């Protein structure tokens, strides 16, 4: 017999009808709920790390011609740039912090704001996540869609600010022009020249910023 007030280990308290006390069921339900919630969070995080896929698009009346299929050496490039900019391109991608209605800041402190012919720097960066095979000359294309481009640009910006090895820096009329060697593949050369040269891999990033504000970035 157990002494009153002391419960043996592993014995679940029961009410006078021999059923497990409701408080234990509450804890079990809560634990299952938390487990499901954590699983969903992990799934959502995994989804945001997938190569970016456009979900909605805004047709551009001056859409250029669709060119050749994507290069075999660029498995993450979803499609060639055909003048259509997805309206969902301005978002945080689970990577950026939203500072205001139209401004985002990266973990390294790079700001993405309104501006450029596309209307927003994120929309401009989008141009460098897909090939533009009819564009004359080279066209740098990042691997990994928008999530990949944002992470690569942030790594380049962090290294640029540290002024470490492999960073070339020029100042032009108040703007900082960096060429950052990342010593790994970050994208490939697209455009007409890239097509002619069979899309050679790119290991550098050309980064142009105005203070902490991105102007443009593309692989070299």
């Amino acid at each position, binding site marked *: 017999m157990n002494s009153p007030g002391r419960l043996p280990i592993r014995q679940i308290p029961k009410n006078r009808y021999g059923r497990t006390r409701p408080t234990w069921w509450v804890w079990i339900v809560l634990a299952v709920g938390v487990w499901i919630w954590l699983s969903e969070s992990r799934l959502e995080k995994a989804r945001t790390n997938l190569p970016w896929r456009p979900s909605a698009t805004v047709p*551009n*009346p*001056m859409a*250029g*011609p669709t060119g050749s299929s994507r290069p075999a050496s660029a498995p993450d490039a979803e499609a060639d740039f055909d*003048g259509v*900019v997805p309206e969902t391109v301005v978002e945080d991608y689970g990577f950026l912090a939203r500072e205001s209605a139209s401004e985002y800041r990266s973990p390294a402190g790079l700001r993405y*704001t*309104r*501006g*450029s*012919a*596309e*209307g927003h720097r994120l929309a*401009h960066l989008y*141009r460098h996540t897909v090939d*533009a095979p*009819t*564009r*004359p*000359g*080279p*066209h*740098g294309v990042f691997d990994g869609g928008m999530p990949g481009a944002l992470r690569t640009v942030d790594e380049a910006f962090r290294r640029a600010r540290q002024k470490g090895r492999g960073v070339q820096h020029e100042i*032009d*009329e*108040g*703007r900082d*022009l960096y060429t950052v060697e990342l010593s790994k593949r970050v994208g490939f050369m697209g455009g007409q020249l890239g097509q002619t040269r069979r899309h050679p891999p790119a290991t550098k990033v*050309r980064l*142009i910023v*105005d203070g902490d*504000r991105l*102007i*443009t970035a*593309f692989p*070299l």
Partner: protein
Amino acid sequence: MVDSDSPAPRYSVGWCPVCQQGLCGIRVCEDEYGLRGLVICDECEAIWLDPNLGQPHLYVDPVAPVWPDYHHSLWGPYTHWASLAEIEQLGWDDAVDHSLDDYQPPTDTDPEKP
């Protein structure tokens, strides 16, 4: 104005000497005071007030860019990438590098494209 939303120029005078990858396209602003032109890189947005890329360039505000010494937005309704007719009107047709034309397809509003 059909191309005002296009991110890339229709006619360019060369590669950008600043960023090395942008097209330096001719953009025009047209209002009741007439037609004026400039050259702007579609990557880094360096601006030249004439088609000679050897001349000094300038930058405007990156968030709300306006035409230099003017008040119209650089990407607003009064401005657009120049057509060949507008480039001839500016007297800049000799500066166009037609090997850079083919990024944009011919359109109904630009029948004179070679």
